[in-house]
């Protein structure tokens, strides 16, 4: 029985065009419902790690298990499906499709994952559940039918959270989601995010260079401390 949501071991990665290792992680584990703060300066391989965790790229050496599944061994299409079913992503900014309204942006993951769609349908209609999540994130219903581009960055980021959480994926990955926010909005945002993640029993990997946010999380890790001695960064 593997209780870990994420379990990385002996991971090594380099780009096809360049044989130099860009990432080297001997071991990393994220438990169920754990809130992990992954800190690292820019250029430390954070982005590459996220691409590996989400199955966009596969490890050159070692394994990444998400919910017990070795995603490196899955075929490309299965990896995409796996990501749709089990992982919710939040980026720095520009998370939303500009031509969809707020509600459609939130329910978009259900279009790619039947698993998440069915979880939503067990609680009500797609629209109702989307409204419920948006409401819990403090978004006013006057915004629901606006285009994403008409909203403030703070509002957009909260909608991105709603989208990541819909259908209760087991793992939320947030890549510097607060970097475009000001101090006040940032603290409110993080609290809302972590509360929502706790409500859905998901784990979260929160990647940021900003150490001042670390105290909100169960555990913090510096990405450089994961590396073996021979890693070149």
């Amino acid at each position, binding site marked *: 029985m593997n209780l870990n949501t994420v379990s990385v071991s002996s991971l090594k990665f380099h780009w096809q065009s360049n044989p130099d290792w860009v990432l080297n992680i001997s071991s990393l584990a994220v438990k169920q419902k754990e809130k992990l703060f992954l800190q690292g300066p820019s250029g430390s391989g954070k982005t*590459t790690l996220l691409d590996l965790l989400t199955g*966009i790229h596969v490890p050159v050496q070692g394994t990444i298990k998400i919910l017990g599944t070795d995603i490196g061994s899955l075929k490309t*299409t299965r990896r995409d499906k796996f990501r749709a079913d089990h992982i919710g*992503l939040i*980026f720095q900014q*520009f998370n939303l*499709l500009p031509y969809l309204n707020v509600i459609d942006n939130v329910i978009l*993951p259900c279009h*790619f*994952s039947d698993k998440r769609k069915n979880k939503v349908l067990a609680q009500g209609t797609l629209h109702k559940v989307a409204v419920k999540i948006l409401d819990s994130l403090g978004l006013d219903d006057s915004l629901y039918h606006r285009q994403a581009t008409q909203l403030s960055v703070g509002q957009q980021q909260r909608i991105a959270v709603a989208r990541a959480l819909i259908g209760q994926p087991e793992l939320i990955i947030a890549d510097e989601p607060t970097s475009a926010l000001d101090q006040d909005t940032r603290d409110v945002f993080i609290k809302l995010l972590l509360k929502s993640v706790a409500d859905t029993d998901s784990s979260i990997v929160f990647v940021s260079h900003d150490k001042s946010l670390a105290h909100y999380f169960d555990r913090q890790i510096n990405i450089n401390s994961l590396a073996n001695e021979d890693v070149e960064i």
Partner: protein
Amino acid sequence: MFFRLVILSLWNRRSSILLTILSIAISVSLLLGVDHLRRQAKDSFTKTVSGVDLIVGARSGQVNLLLYSVFRIGNATNNISWESYQEIAENKNIAWTIPISLGDSHKGFRVMGTTQSYFDHYRFGDKQPLAFSKGESFKGVYDAVLGYSVAKELGYQVEQKIIISHGLGKVSFSKHDDKPFTVVGILQATGTPVDRTVHVSLAGIEAIHLDWQQGVKIPGLVISAEDALKHDLTPASITAMMVGLKSKIATFKLQRYINEYRKEPLMAVLPGVALVELWQIVSVIENLLLIISAMVVVAGLTGMLTTLIAGLNERRREIAILRSLGAQPLYVFLLLMIEAVVLALIGCLLGVALIFVLLSIIKPILVTEYGLFISAMPISLEMVYVLTIIISLAALLGLIPSLIAYKRSLKDGLTVKV
């Protein structure tokens, strides 16, 4: 949801997309328009004369005979004697004949001498008879019936007196001004050379030439219009004759009889065959126009390709978001493919609509101004195939941006910074 994404994404880029669709629509409507006019021209051309089984004239080429007898272009090399005409006309296979006599003109319009038989038996288009819009057929020697365009361009009405010029020049110095004709009838538009013809009786042609010889007035000989009526106005010869048979089966038999006629060298041609032969001379230009229009369509589609490829960079973010949500590269590929097909489809439909609108606007103008009747149905079965090919070609071109996006979506991470 897939199609909503396609449509909403296109709508989001509507300014460049609408221009692309417009350029496809215009090129498609140009192609359809050229093809339609080409078919209509061919159709109307090959139906310039119908219901006539044989055209008989002095021996030359069949296209030449057709040109002067039907299209009033060029001149006859020789005439048919009145005796031969009568002998042939009495052949038992022949139902009717139309003798025609050419050589004079009125202000650039050809004057044709003929008989009542012409108004009774001549057919054009789908066997349509000639009809009078005003007045009636000629009765007297100095009566004239005008084609539609003659009356329209010269502003003539019934009762108008006209002077016939000798020869064919627009500005002729030798005029038959001693024997003016009176317009007694004006024909309805036919869209054929009939519209540009002044019709008089054979006797009228004979009368104005009584005091002429070899194309010049005989010096000292003056025969007034009234005196001329006292002469025998049976012509000595005619230019050509049109023949209607009792039974089509006799066509080739009679053609051979005329071609082998002993007393003078004559030839008989089947107008349908001669018209097709004549059309083939024109068809080079027709095909050239079609090729040019096809190139314009290709240019329109290339414009679409440019827009789609140029749009790819702005859409990296959009594609990365879809990928992060679990969209497979194939999904991204299809999204762009469908986009190209949708653009071509809308462009084609709009092009079809455009040509319908254009035709309904120009149709009445062509009828009233040029006496040309064109069908309002520009879509032929072949064009349905062509539209299918255009859309397939768009799909083929759509492969390029789709493959670029596909490869990129495999390579790009989730965090594209734009």
